[in-house]
């Protein structure tokens, strides 16, 4: 059902963990959908230096979290904002149709962490929006 890439990132997830005093932290999803993602970013000089995650969720949720952290490290904040669920899914060689929504969560967690960074530092970036509480409330 899952591609080899997905299984690799699921069974050996990169960047699991927390970052103390992270530049930005974002949590999205809720237990009702069965997926919760928390993303930690360290950003220095507008570059993402480090990314960590914790995820409660299915194989696809964990693999996309892992892949999203890999993709974001080394990017400028502007570049990071442009990382889409599509990019994450493609980097994983695709997901089964019923699991595609999990990749949305990875994108949203990233955006939420970047938003957190931006608000804390009083910055504004084009294309970066406040995470919607309605869809995936933090608990």
């Amino acid at each position, binding site marked *: 059902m899952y591609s080899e890439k997905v299984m690799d990132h699921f069974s050996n997830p990169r960047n699991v963990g927390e970052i103390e005093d992270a530049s930005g932290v974002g949590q999205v999803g*809720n237990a009702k959908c069965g997926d919760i*993602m928390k993303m930690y970013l360290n950003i220095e000089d507008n570059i993402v230096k480090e990314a960590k995650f914790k*995820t409660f969720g299915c194989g696809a949720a964990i693999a996309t979290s892992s892949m999203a952290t890999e993709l974001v490290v080394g990017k400028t904040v502007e570049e990071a904002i442009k990382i889409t669920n599509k990019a994450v899914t493609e980097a994983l060689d695709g997901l089964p149709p019923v699991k595609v929504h999990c990749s949305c969560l990875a994108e949203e967690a990233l955006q939420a962490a970047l938003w957190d960074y931006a608000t804390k530092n009083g910055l504004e970036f084009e294309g970066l929006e406040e995470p919607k509480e309605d869809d995936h409330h933090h608990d």
Partner: protein
Amino acid sequence: MERIYFDHAATTPMKEEVLDAMMPYFTENYGNPSSVYNIAQVNRKAVDDSRASIAEILGARPNEIFFTSGGTEADNWAIRGIAARKGRKGNHIITTKVEHHAVLHTCEYLERHGYEVTYLDVDEYGLVTAEQVEAAIKDTTILISVMYANNEIGTIMPIKEIGEVAKKHDIPFHTDAVQAIGQERINVDELNVDLLSLSGHKINGPKGMGILYIRRGTRLCPLIHGGAQERGRRGGTENVPGIVGLAKALELTYADFDNKNRKIREMRDYLIDGILKEVPYARLNGHREKRLANNLNISFEFVEGESLLLLLDMEGIAASSGSACTSGSLDASHVMLAIGLPHEKAHGSIRITLGETNTMEEADKLLEKLPAIVQRMRDMSPLYEDFINNKK
């Protein structure tokens, strides 16, 4: 890698003896049982003998046994067949919140077509009571459908008592016994059921074969109209090898039944005790005693079930989270929610269902691997992180 199969509620391997019984009817005795000529007689006899053998096991008459393409068709037929009856006294159906989708989706379909359905609540163990059923009966009630045992949490319903209520009020009573048949002795008269669904592939028999038992005198419309097969009540050329295989599987199920049943029950209890002892923040779902001999269903807090399954699978252990049939869905299992689990626990349950070929070594392997797997997922879980932080 040595593979361990712990998902017998999803489906079971067909036994060699069942395949052997079916083999002559594939390429050799292929005649249509409805034909007059000689070569078809052996097929007609095979169908008749199978029906008689199944009837005897269930305490029924041969002409009360109808072959279907599986448990799902049997459930659909029972419910829609009663509902479609002309001159019915009403349009109200009583069932429960924890039925299989074959029953639930059929009832929902009927609701969209003008029927009224009461979905009874269950208690924290997944049980309804005969009193609840009786209280729900109206003048317009035409059918009561309560599953014999739940496919996810293994809870066994008080079918005999519900059957008495149904009989008292003269309302047809259907039970989905698809999961129960391999684990419980079933006698249709003792249970007071009028309609009972079975499936072949859950008892080491063929896939795509099921039975609807219809008590003599129970009037219901066909679901599948066609030729004169099954005495005009279910059309379609008979799947002769499937029928023979199903009868054989049922016979084998009840050969040395008590002995096999006791062993499986012991293994189940060993696993329940072992897992609850080894893994913290775990709970057994379903009832401790009123439980299928081969089912354990455990929720592990802070983790999600599919990930556990994948990690177990990497160790060669096949299990399930909720019903295998619904794995395409993203919602938490309706059964878990009905017994009152919050969503995150509902998502974090796994089901282990044993078969007669499982060994104690396999059980021990699970006990050895599971705690670390759960811990590994917890270490990755933001919910666990919150929990630990709150404890500090």
